[in-house]
């Protein structure tokens, strides 16, 4: 019974947060563009309807199976992330003692599905986007591994449930101040946004999704927002204490914190400039990775 309720609640939250993210995106864009927006809350729905009513195009000799699997896989990975997150003490959909590692596996599979999305149309711009994403998607995963291990030290466990419980006195965002910023960079990359949007970037006229039309375009955009939700929920649990909070019920706290992280990610994605991929690859290895070492050392010293 409780499982059914949890699943239904999760779905309601998922749909609401996809809609909220799309709206936030439009509002943020309109604010920066300085022109305002017209009914940002309805535009996502209308655009979705438009994409559904367009023809679905394929290219010459496309890899149809992988095109399907990439969208379905991206969608599923976002959902797995969401299902790993505890919504109350000892309540998760996927109860795994190594859920931090499972989230890492999701991250690495995201690289695979984004690559497949760019590979399957057999088109040059999409292909360049796919390869470029791998160059960034692989090394940036290391940041999250160090950061998550640092969060696991005080909890003495790789279980997200224990990590949330260990934050009952003080949130990890205070314990390891470098952790959340580094983790959000990973989130930008996982959701193909802003300064880490190397797959679907403007200099490739849309990159891996340049050839996507109609329902495929809709599917890919929804999957991106599902991944944004999944990532934000994980970040909220690891750094902001997840469901912990006074007065309000736990799931509501989790939803609020998830939306907060989501807002930050969306805001950053519109505000920060994207550098050429070679420069970013160097920056991750030479600049950000040592920072994550430092984060781990600080967390390690603190935990003892």
């Amino acid at each position, binding site marked *: 019974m409780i499982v059914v309720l949890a699943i239904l609640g999760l779905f309601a939250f998922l749909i609401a947060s996809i809609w909220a993210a799309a709206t936030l995106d439009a509002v*943020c*864009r*309109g604010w*920066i*563009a*300085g*022109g*305002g*927006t*017209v009914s940002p809350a*309805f*535009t996502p*729905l*209308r*655009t979705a*309807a*438009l994409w*559904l*009513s*367009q*023809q*679905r*195009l394929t290219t*010459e*000799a496309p890899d149809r199976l992988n095109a399907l699997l990439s969208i379905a896989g991206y969608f599923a990975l976002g959902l797995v992330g969401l299902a790993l997150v505890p919504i109350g003490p000892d309540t998760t959909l996927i109860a795994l003692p190594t859920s931090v590692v499972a989230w890492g596996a999701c991250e690495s599979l995201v690289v695979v599905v984004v690559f497949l999305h760019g590979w399957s149309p057999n088109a*040059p711009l999409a292909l*360049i986007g796919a*390869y*470029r994403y791998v160059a960034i998607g692989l090394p940036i995963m290391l940041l999250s591994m160090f950061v998550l291990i640092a969060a696991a030290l005080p909890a003495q466990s790789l279980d997200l449930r224990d990590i949330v419980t260990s934050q009952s006195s003080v949130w990890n965002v205070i314990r390891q101040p470098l952790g959340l910023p580094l983790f959000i960079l990973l989130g930008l990359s996982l959701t193909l946004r*802003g*300064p880490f*949007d190397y797959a679907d*970037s*403007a*200099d*490739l*006229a*849309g990159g891996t*999704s*340049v*050839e*996507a*039309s*109609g329902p495929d*375009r809709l599917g890919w955009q929804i999957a991106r927002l599902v991944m944004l939700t999944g990532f934000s929920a994980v970040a909220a649990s690891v750094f902001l204490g997840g469901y912990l909070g006074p007065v309000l019920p736990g799931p509501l706290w989790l939803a609020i914190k998830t939306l907060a992280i989501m807002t930050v990610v969306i805001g950053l994605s*519109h*505000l*920060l*400039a*994207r*550098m*050429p*991929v*070679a*420069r970013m690859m160097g920056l991750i290895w030479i600049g950000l990775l040592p920072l994550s070492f430092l984060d781990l050392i600080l967390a390690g010293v603190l935990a003892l």
Partner: protein
Amino acid sequence: MSWISRLAARAPVPVFIAQGESAPDALARLALNPAIHVVDSPRAACILLISGRIPSALADCLNRLHDQLPHPRATVLWQSHAMEPFSNAVEVDASDDIANALSATFADLLAGDRPSEADILPDAPPNEWRGIGPHGQGGKGMMGGTPYGRPMAKTDDDIRDGLSLDAYTADFGPFLPMFPAGLALTLTLQGDMIQAVTVAHPPFEGDTAARERLLRLLGLSALALRSLHGQKGDGTFRRLVRLSRARAAIPADLGRLPDGSDVRSRFDAMVTGLQTAPASDTDMTLGDLLVGLEWHEALLVINSLDNATLRGVCARMDAPPDSTNDATHADHDMHAEHMG
């Protein structure tokens, strides 16, 4: 599914712009209209907006572009000229309101009052392939033939790390949203790096949207929109550009011209709105500027040049690529047999 169509008809109109010569100045500001969504890829568009005069040399490109839109689709000609394949298109002249025309066409299209336009080009692959070869796949051997209508790529030398892998040659443009209007390049790529470049068509004269494109290339599409407002002293705009670290994102020394300016300094000049004199006449060719650069860097270089300089650079011919093409082709065929 009429309710879907009704809902869809109220979405921002997805327009792909094919810009010709002497297009109206208002074209760049079309993106500021919240009822219009200027899209990056023809795959996402419903309406192909042809604006300005399309030179006859680019007519084939326009036809190809038109056919890449998914159904339902329509063409709108804005201050353009009559073209034979687009006899059914909606024509809009200087006195009409373009946004209204686009919205009306879009609504008609989704309501079914306006039939979706048929293909211009014949429904045939670039090369005949069906039924050819032992598996009917259009090829024999591992690299021969034209499987699925196109030949396979051939290996070529690499100028950076010496791994001779397949080179990809194609005409990019003239209607790519990240290229200056009219520019079409024949690029040979090894991976995402530019190996050889020739100008297939130079950019049109009088293009002024370089700043907006450069900001979009840096992933700042919302800021690019803001830059279109064109208020000279928009302090917020400059503050936001500084906040975005766009300057630091551009590699130093990229695309340096003999007058000492590089992409970074030219970007600075664009953002502060300083009118710099067109770069002094150089004898550089586009090949000198682009060969060896990664795709994103190359696009930054192209879009950092002002219109006059870019036209000058494009006008100078590169040394013709050595004519080994036939030789490699013969070699390639030999291999196809060899492996058959």
